[in-house]
């Protein structure tokens, strides 16, 4: 059961020599073997590399060499390039793509001593919020395998929830870490845009993409962030600002903004009450709750749709089948749709109407948040307006992702940091997540609130829930 541990717990266990990295790694690989047929969290399991890394780590540990993630098994979303391990971004175009270099994030994790378990499934090219648009088949939600895990980092979120790994790395353009974390009941941190290098991540929306950890605990999230964060000379958009490492879970007197605009029409009532209960908990912990008027998140859908599609149309131009990969006829429908819309939005005569207009509204959204953070320290809102949706929900809905991500898009557009934390379960046994949004480059603030909530709900009954790995909604609960 070593695979059930958190990063912190594994670290301690390794330090105290209660078990080896190889044992933890084998436990994870076992769990993957047992459950991945049902879940399909992984596109590639790198067993050989994992065992090699684990042995190396054990050797280093025996020599007393320490590193922040020494011997910790991790799963990496399949849009991070891994030298020598196939990287597909869940698209058949890259079916046989063998990277000749490591993403900066992967290099940092390697330097920190990680054991790489494999590459996790995602919506092809990260285009989606379901992980069912993967060319390698859908990932299922471990709490109810008739449901979607969310996406695009659905494989990473499901793998963490199902204890196939100790922790995982995901990436988010707008919601792709927070939303699947919410649907899978785990902690998902989207750092500030520019906090973590994008070098070596298959680009989606270049002005939005952000990489971050998906973990079992808030503490693990902070630890992995400290490894990932920092200026990268290979990514001109990374910031030199230093990450504040101290996470303060005492939130007494701090101000939380709650915006009625984020409890949108049609929100699932159980999600609404779950998040409002969490707000109540924060109030009991001494935080001051302030009602906050925020710019209507529905406009963020428009801004996001235009900017992201435009950037996608250009970012996917390099996939011409000449230097690597298969030719452009292998693009799936969703990618084609996005490329076409972006191409149209940038084409002669439409630039001002679409791209430029969207960047102007984006400036308004940025300014709106700036003003909000003069009044409050963080903002709390539902991560997703709905509970996990059934497998098949995305069929022929060209705006599925945008609607699922309406509450995470504004903060992504503004490049802010945000974290999803599990706050409870629905009556049907599905996770409910709340997001805490903070100002740029103040991950320590949102992590502090998240940690405070986690510490104070540690003994709540819902914390004992276990993923079912079955189709709960179809009447086959195994609890």
């Amino acid at each position, binding site marked *: 059961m070593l695979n059930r541990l958190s990063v912190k717990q594994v670290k301690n266990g390794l330090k105290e020599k209660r078990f080896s990295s190889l044992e933890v790694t084998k436990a994870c690989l076992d769990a993957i073997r047992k459950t991945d047929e049902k879940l399909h969290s992984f596109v590639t399991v790198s067993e050989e590399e994992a065992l090699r890394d684990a042995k190396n780590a054990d050797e280093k540990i025996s020599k007393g060499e320490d590193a922040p993630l020494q011997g910790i098994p991790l799963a990496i979303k399949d849009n991070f390039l891994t030298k020598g391990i196939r990287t597909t971004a869940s698209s058949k175009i890259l079916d046989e793509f063998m990277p000749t270099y490591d993403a900066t994030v992967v290099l940092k994790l390697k330097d920190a001593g990680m054991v790489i378990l494999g590459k996790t499934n995602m919506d092809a090219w990260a285009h989606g919020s379901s992980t069912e648009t993967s060319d390698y088949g859908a990932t299922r939600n471990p709490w109810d395998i008739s449901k979607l895990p969310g996406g695009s980092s659905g494989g990473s979120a499901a793998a963490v929830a199902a204890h196939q790994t100790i922790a995982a790395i995901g990436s988010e353009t707008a919601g792709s870490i927070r939303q699947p974390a919410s649907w899978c009941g785990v902690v998902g941190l989207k750092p500030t845009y520019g906090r973590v290098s994008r070098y070596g991540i298959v680009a989606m929306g270049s002005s939005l993409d952000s990489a971050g950890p998906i973990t079992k605990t808030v503490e693990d999230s902070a630890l992995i962030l400290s490894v990932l964060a920092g200026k990268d000379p290979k990514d001109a958009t990374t*910031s030199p600002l230093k990450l504040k490492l101290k996470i303060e879970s005492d939130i007494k007197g701090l101000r939380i903004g709650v915006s009625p605009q984020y409890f949108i029409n049609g929100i699932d009532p159980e999600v609404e009450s779950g998040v409002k209960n969490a707000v109540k908990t924060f109030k009991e912990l001494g935080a001051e709750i302030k009602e906050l008027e925020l710019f209507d998140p529905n*406009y963020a859908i*428009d801004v996001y749709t235009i900017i992201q599609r435009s950037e996608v149309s250009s970012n996917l131009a390099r996939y011409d089948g*000449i230097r690597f990969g298969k030719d452009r006829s292998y693009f799936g429908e969703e990618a084609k*749709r996005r*490329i076409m819309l972006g191409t149209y939005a940038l084409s002669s005569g439409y630039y001002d109407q679409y791209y430029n207009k969207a960047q102007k*509204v984006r*400036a308004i959204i940025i300014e709106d948040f700036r003003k909000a953070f003069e009044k409050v320290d963080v903002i709390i809102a539902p991560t997703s307006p709905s509970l996990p949706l059934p497998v098949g929900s995305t069929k022929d809905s060209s705006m599925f992702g945008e609607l699922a991500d309406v509450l995470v898009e504004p903060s992504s557009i503004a*490049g802010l940091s945000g974290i999803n934390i599990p706050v409870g379960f629905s009556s049907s046994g599905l996770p409910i997540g709340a997001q805490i949004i903070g100002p740029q480059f103040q991950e320590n603030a949102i992590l502090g609130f998240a940690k405070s909530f986690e510490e104070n709900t540690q003994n709540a009954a819902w914390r004992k829930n276990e993923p079912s790995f079955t189709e709960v909604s179809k009447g086959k609960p195994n609890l």
Partner: protein
Amino acid sequence: MKINVKNVARLANLPVSIDEEKKFEKQLEETLTYIENLNEVDTTEVKPADNVTGLTNITREDIVEPSLSQEEALRNTKSTHRGFFKVKGILDAK
């Protein structure tokens, strides 16, 4: 809003079948209709956002570092000839 899907597909260098053409036309028009409400936002006095981090003047020193070997550069394609990438002959009409 009428999209010339064929022209957009040509610009995007995407092979699109006739069936897809019809489907995309409908879907893209739906999306464009969906985002039309952006026009409700008054942006007359607003400058477009450029980089959310506020970073400027990011450059690197003019220093040479090792390149990939020819073998590495060509590793992910099967279509090569004498160290070149090879494609079907194109008229040099650029």
